[in-house]
């Protein structure tokens, strides 16, 4: 479904991604793990069009999206939950969620999904009229997830969804990720918490300073010595 081919990207003169290639097949959860600063976030930003690749190309459903603007990419069906949540601080929770459904036209469907999000994150339901900037960190994370779901994406890019969340919520979030995936959304998951990420995902890639150094099925990676030592803290 998503094919990243020899993509390089960076900020200003600094090259962060060095000709990385990987792919995500339809219906799967694929995870990208790696230490801080290796370029995971950069990878996601490049896919969703916030950054332009300096070389290589990105194919989504066999269409080249590497030069498309972010909003076009969203229309193609890719939704990105950015790192650090980035909710709209002065919009209410409800309005934030409505923004998630910006590209959709089916009012009824939107309403249904809104209910779904409220049920998934009951804590948000209590705060529909609060401005998002005053939510606690965890609440904001939930809101960012919920907002992405509102666009009914075909491919969901998640950047560290568990950051700053209470353990119970983390478990919940990963359950939700699985559930969303079961309902047909393909997921590319970036996580520090490699343990949980690999347990959730079908396939995994390991990044190190701008390159992909390992790829395998998630189960295999969980067993991989190198991975266990470097990323699972064992």
């Amino acid at each position, binding site marked *: 479904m998503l094919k990243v081919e020899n993509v390089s990207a960076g900020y200003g003169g600094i090259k962060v991604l060095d000709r990385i290639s990987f792919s995500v097949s339809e219906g799967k959860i694929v995870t990208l793990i790696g230490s*801080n600063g290796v370029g995971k976030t950069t990878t996601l930003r490049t896919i969703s069009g916030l950054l332009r690749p300096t070389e290589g190309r990105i194919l989504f459903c066999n269409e080249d999206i590497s030069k498309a603007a972010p909003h076009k990419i969203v229309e193609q069906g890719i939704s990105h939950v950015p790192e650090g949540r980035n909710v709209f601080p002065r919009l209410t929770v409800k309005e934030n969620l409505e923004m998630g459904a910006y590209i959709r036209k089916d009012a009824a469907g939107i309403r249904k999904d809104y209910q779904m999000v409220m049920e998934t994150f009951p804590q948000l339901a209590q705060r529909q009229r609060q401005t998002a900037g005053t*939510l*606690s960190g965890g609440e904001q994370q939930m809101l960012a997830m919920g907002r992405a779901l509102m666009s009914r994406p075909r491919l969901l890019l998640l950047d560290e969804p568990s950051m700053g969340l209470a*353990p119970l919520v983390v*478990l919940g979030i990963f359950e939700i990720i699985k559930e969303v995936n079961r309902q047909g959304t393909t997921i590319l998951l970036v996580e520090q918490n490699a343990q949980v990420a690999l347990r959730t995902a079908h396939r995994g890639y390991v990044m190190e300073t701008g390159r992909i150094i390992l790829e395998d099925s998630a189960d295999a990676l969980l067993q991989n010595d190198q991975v266990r030592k470097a*990323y699972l803290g064992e």
Partner: protein
Amino acid sequence: MHKIILKAANICHSFGGLMALKDVDFAIKSGEIVGLIGPNGAGKTTLFNLFTGHYAPTRGEILFNNLRISGLKPYQITPLGIARTFQNIRLFGQMSVLDNVLTGQHCRTRTGLFGAIIRTRSSKKEESRAHKTAQEMLHFVNLGDKKNEYASNLSYGERRRLEIARALATDPTLLLLDEPAAGMNPQETADLIELIRQIRVKMDKTILLIEHDMKVVMGISERVAVLNYGRKIAEGTPGEVQKNEAVIKAYLGESA
């Protein structure tokens, strides 16, 4: 030795209509490492903000070393010996790493306008002392070789450590850490745990930390307090808290 250094009595805090904290009693003894946990939005960061003077409690009072600090401003509280890090890192981005830590020494130095312009003897001495301390702090958190970088050029983990160094530079007796391990991988987390231990052992600080990573909280805290919906629902040793029904239900979940 084990005297109470921070005591909060019947703290309430509301934002508009929302009660973020309700009747919280809390105390920390000198030399302890205390963990503060609770679901998202439980009011942990808010409690920190009350301790450091960013908000004034709606009701209740906070004593630090028997001095009433509730109602004081952050810049008045820091010199008394409370320092913190922020949940969302708040470094001085366009300042060098060294200058960030030097800024931490602000409340421990005196040079005024005159001294700064004339560069009096005492101001020079003070400045070189501050530099020395700052370098020590940077070495301590293992950032010695980055001192001339802009803070905004650091990687995430480095920023977290720099924030800790900056807080330590204010020479606190009580250090408040708000989710220091967030966004770190297991290896870095392990390093962080070691760092926090060192802070206590080598620098003799009392530490209160908020954290969602149970490996950290349970690994290093001697005592853990749990907030839920603004109320303290449990307090005790990590072992006790982990077994507490209410805590499991509200926060940890069955499998943790």
